[in-house]
């Protein structure tokens, strides 16, 4: 005992406490980092294999056996009923054409055409929130049968928290939101990327009361 005490100056810990301390650091980083990184990864993305068209992204293989491990893990954790390939394909957008986050404080215009589909629906919801009700007083969800179009079959939808003339999609009043565009019975779902797909553009028209 005496020799041990002499070999270390005053104020320095004995090596006896050093090994448990190092093991505790390693374990804390391993478990904390492992669990945290998994939660972040499963929350941030649906997996690999996305189709990205402008601001829109879709995961045509997320519901199949060919999905990557992250996609399988994500869908097992989220527990959603996904659309199969003959049913439809879901495109989501969280940013506008310039890459800025979509927020309820600003107004946006959605112009152009969707890829070929028999029917489509469009709604906005806060991230993680439930889709809006069809019985809502405001037009929180639109579909291809209720949208007014121009001579080419294109549409021009104004997305804003306050009422606008023409096609108006009511978005959540404040905070970020995500757009969900679901194409039903579309060849896009089985597309190998060879078809030239055009998605409607999302452009910001103004913020605040502008």
């Amino acid at each position, binding site marked *: 005992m005496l020799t041990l005490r002499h070999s270390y100056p005053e104020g*320095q810990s004995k090596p006896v406490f*050093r090994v448990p301390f*190092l*093991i505790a*650091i*390693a*374990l*804390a*980083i*391993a*478990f904390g*980092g*492992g*669990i945290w*990184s*998994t939660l972040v*990864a*499963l929350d941030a993305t649906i997996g690999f294999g996305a189709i990205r068209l402008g601001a829109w992204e879709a995961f045509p293989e997320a*519901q*199949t*056996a060919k*999905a990557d*491990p*992250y996609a*399988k*893990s994500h*869908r*097992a*954790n989220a*527990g*959603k*009923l*996904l*659309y*199969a*390939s*003959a*049913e*439809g394909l879901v495109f989501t957008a969280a940013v506008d054409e310039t890459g800025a986050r979509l927020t309820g404080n600003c107004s946006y215009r959605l112009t152009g055409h969707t890829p070929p589909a*028999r*029917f489509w*629906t469009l*709604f906005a919801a806060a991230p993680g929130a*439930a*889709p*809006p*009700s*069809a*019985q*809502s007083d405001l037009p*929180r*969800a639109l*579909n*291809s*049968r*209720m949208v007014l179009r121009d001579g080419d079959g294109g549409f021009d939808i104004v997305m804003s928290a306050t009422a606008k003339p023409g096609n108006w999609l009511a978005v959540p009043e404040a905070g970020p939101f995500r757009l*969900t565009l*679901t194409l*039903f*019975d579309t060849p896009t779902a089985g597309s190998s990327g060879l078809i030239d797909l055009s998605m409607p553009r999302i452009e910001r028209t103004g913020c605040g009361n502008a």
Partner: protein
Amino acid sequence: MPRIFALQVLFAAVTGLIGAALLHLVIVLLLPDFSERDAYTRVLAEGESHRFYRLGEKPDRAGLSKNDPFVDTAVCAFDVSEGPLRLTAPNGGVPFWSLAVYDQSSNEVFSINDRTSAGGVLDVVIATPVQLTSLRQAQPPALSQSILVETTQAEGYVVLRSLVPQPSFADIASQFLSQATCTPFEWRSRSRF
């Protein structure tokens, strides 16, 4: 002495990071097998198998809800290990319906919509490869118009969706889903021994 200690701490941190990476992979790969929030578990929690359950706009006690305000949805859990399953629904003018068959890991087995079906009527038989072979040999007249689907996994679930583009279609869509059946097919092969 402090330099050695700093090196030891660094080594511990690196070991921790390698452990974190391993744990990340283990969780991601094993989560689908152990998840109790996946779609199949939730469909099973709706109630007994072999009947359709309509989903509402708010999550029910099983945690399932409609994905889209314009789409009415019904789910049915099945187990074809005892015998094939038959899905039928008469079409009373629904503008669009679609059916997806998933196995217990939520992998898509089969999907169909009203345009790809025969005459817009839902008539699908889900069977294991062995059942399907004897079904094809016997060719029961009741199944002459049915679409036969082979599944290697005996257990799974079915999602039936019906479109409501305008509120006036709600009754037709509701009727379509409530008349849909998801029942084991009563059929005995004569060549059974």
